C-alpha cells in the first residue's frame, strides 16, 4: 500500500517543512517514506513543491505523475497539479490564494482559507499546517497524534515557540475540513 502526496506553493510558505513533518511522522510510525523536493533555481522566490511517499514496502520511484493527494497552497500549483491527481484522490486548496475552486468532480476536495485561519491563530506562517490538518481529515494515512508527535520530536530547538501554534493549526485545519469537505459524487 503506497500513498503519494504532492505539496506545492510559493517559496516561503513552508511547503518543504510541511512535507518533512509528514515524512517524520511516517518514519516514526515504522513506515517507509521518501521526501523529494523541487530543488534548484526555481526555488528562489518562485514555486516550491515536494513529493512525499508513504509505504509499507521498499519504495520505488520517489516521484509519481499521478499522486493520491495534492495540497495546493497557491493558484499556479492548483493549475499545475489538480489535473494529475488520481481519480478518487484528495485535493486540498488554499482558498485564500487560489483564484478558483476545485474543478475535478472525481476527487475528495476541500477549499480551505488557510491563510485566513492561520491569521486568526495569530501567525500567517501556520497556513501550511492548517492545510496539512485538512488533508489528514480527508486522507487519514497518519493519525493526527502521530503528526503532532513528529512536530514535538523533530521541530528544531530554535522553533520550539512555534510547537503549540503548529499543533493548533493542524487541529483548526482538520476541524474546518470535517465541516466543509466536498466528497466525490
Amino acid at each position, binding site marked *: 500500500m503506497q500513498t503519494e502526496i504532492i505539496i506545492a506553493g510559493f517559496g516561503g510558505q513552508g511547503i518543504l517543512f510541511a512535507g518533512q513533518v509528514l515524512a517524520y511522522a511516517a518514519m516514526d510510525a515504522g513506515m517507509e517514506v521518501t521526501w523529494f523536493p523541487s530543488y534548484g533555481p526555481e526555488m528562489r522566490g518562485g514555486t516550491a513543491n515536494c513529493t512525499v511517499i508513504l509505504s509499507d514496502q521498499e519504495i520505488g520511484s520517489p516521484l*509519481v505523475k*499521478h499522486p493520491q493527494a495534492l495540497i495546493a497552497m497557491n493558484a499556479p500549483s492548483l493549475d499545475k497539479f489538480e489535473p494529475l491527481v488520481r481519480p478518487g484522490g484528495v485535493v486540498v486548496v488554499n482558498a485564500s490564494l487560489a483564484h478558483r475552486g476545485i474543478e475535478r468532480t472525481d476527487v475528495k476536495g476541500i477549499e480551505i482559507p488557510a491563510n485566513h485561519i492561520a491569521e486568526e491563530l495569530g501567525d500567517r506562517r501556520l497556513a501550511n499546517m492548517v492545510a496539512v490538518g485538512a488533508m489528514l481529515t480527508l486522507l487519514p494515512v497518519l493519525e493526527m497524534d502521530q503528526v503532532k508527535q513528529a512536530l514535538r520530536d523533530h521541530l528544531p530547538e530554535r522553533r520550539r515557540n512555534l510547537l503549540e501554534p503548529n499543533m493548533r493549526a493542524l487541529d483548526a485545519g482538520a476541524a474546518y475540513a470535517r465541516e466543509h469537505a466536498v466528497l466525490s459524487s
Partner: protein
Amino acid sequence: MPKRELMKGNEAMAEAAIRAGVEAYFGYPITPQSELLEYMSRRMPQLGRVFLQAESEIAAINMAYGAACTGARVMSSSSGPGVSLMSEGLSYIIGTEVPFVLVDVMRGGPGLGNIAPSQGDYRQVSHAGGHGDTFPIVLAPASVQEAVDLIYQAFDLAEKYRTVVIVLADGSIGQMMEPVALPEYRPLPEKRPDWAVTGEPGRPRRRLTSLYLHPEDEEVVNLRLLKRWRQVEANEVRYRTYYLDDAEYIVVGFGMAGRVALSAVRMAREEGLKVGLFRPVSLRPFPTKELRRLAPKAKAMMVVEMNSGQMLDDVLAAVQGQTPVRFYGRMGGMVPFPDEVLEQIRLLVKEPPTLDEDPRERWIAHMEQMLTPAS
C-alpha cells in the same frame, strides 16, 4: 527496527563517511552535491579532523592524493564538471596505488548542463575514472540508506585493493530525504599501512609514485593493477534482483533509474506481466556474468537509464546476443516517471524486439515524437 533518522542523501553520505572513519576531506562546492561539503565543513572540525575547501577541484584532488599517501582515510565529493577536473588526479592516485573515496552526485550535461538528476557520468567514471589503464571501483546507490551503506564499505574496499572507489549517486539521491539507520562510529586507524610515507626516520625509505619513466617498469605496475582488478571482479560484484523467479522479461537499471523501474515493474506485475528487475549496484566490476546467465531465460531485456544508453553497451556485451535488448532513457536532467517505463514494458511484451533490432531505434523515434511541440 534500529533507530532511524530522516536525512537528506548528501548529508547522510557525509555522516556515513565520518562514521567510517574519514580523517580528511578536500573538496570544492558544486550543486547538487554541496550539502555534503557543507556538512563536512561543520562536523569535521568538531571532531578534530581535516576539512579543507580548496580553490578548485584540481587542487582538492591533489591535496587528497598527498594525504592518501600518508595512509590517512581520505575522501572528496563533486559532480560531473568537477569530476572532469579531478580525473588527472584520480589516475595519479590509482597509479600510485593509494586508497581514496570519491562521491560523484551526477547532474545534467554535457558541459555546464544543469543541476537536475542525471546518470550521464556512468561512462566517465566506469570506463575511465582517469587516463591510462585505470580501474576504479564504482558503486551506485539507489536510496539514501544504500548510499550510506556503500560509502561505509567504500573505505574498506579502497584500502583492501589500494585503489579509488567512486560512489556514483545523482542529484535525486543527494537531495531527497529518506529514513536511514546509520552505522556505528569506527575508531580512526592507529597504525598506518606499511606503504605509507610518514616521514619516520630509521626505517627503509618508502617511495610512492605514479611516474615510471621506463616502460618496462610501468608494465610491471600495469600487470599488478590488472591482477588486483581481477580480485575485485571475483569478490566485489554487487546487484539486487526483484521478481526474477518467473520473469520472462527483465528490466535492467541502476541507481534512481532502477528505482523508477521497480515501480514500473510492480505496476506491470499487477497487470499480470511476468517482468522482473535486475539492478546493478557495482557498475565496475559490472555484473557481467550474472546478466549473461540470466539472458537465455529472458524473452527480452530492457535497459532503463537517465542518459543516452551508457550502461546499455555493458548489458549488450554481457548478454552476447542471447536475448534481444531494448533501451529506454531520459536525458539532460529529466527523471522518467514510472508510468512511462510501464508503457515501454507493455510494448516490450506486446511487440518484443528481435535480435536484429537496434536497441535505441524505437526509443529515439519515441523521443523525437515526445519532444516535438504539437503544432
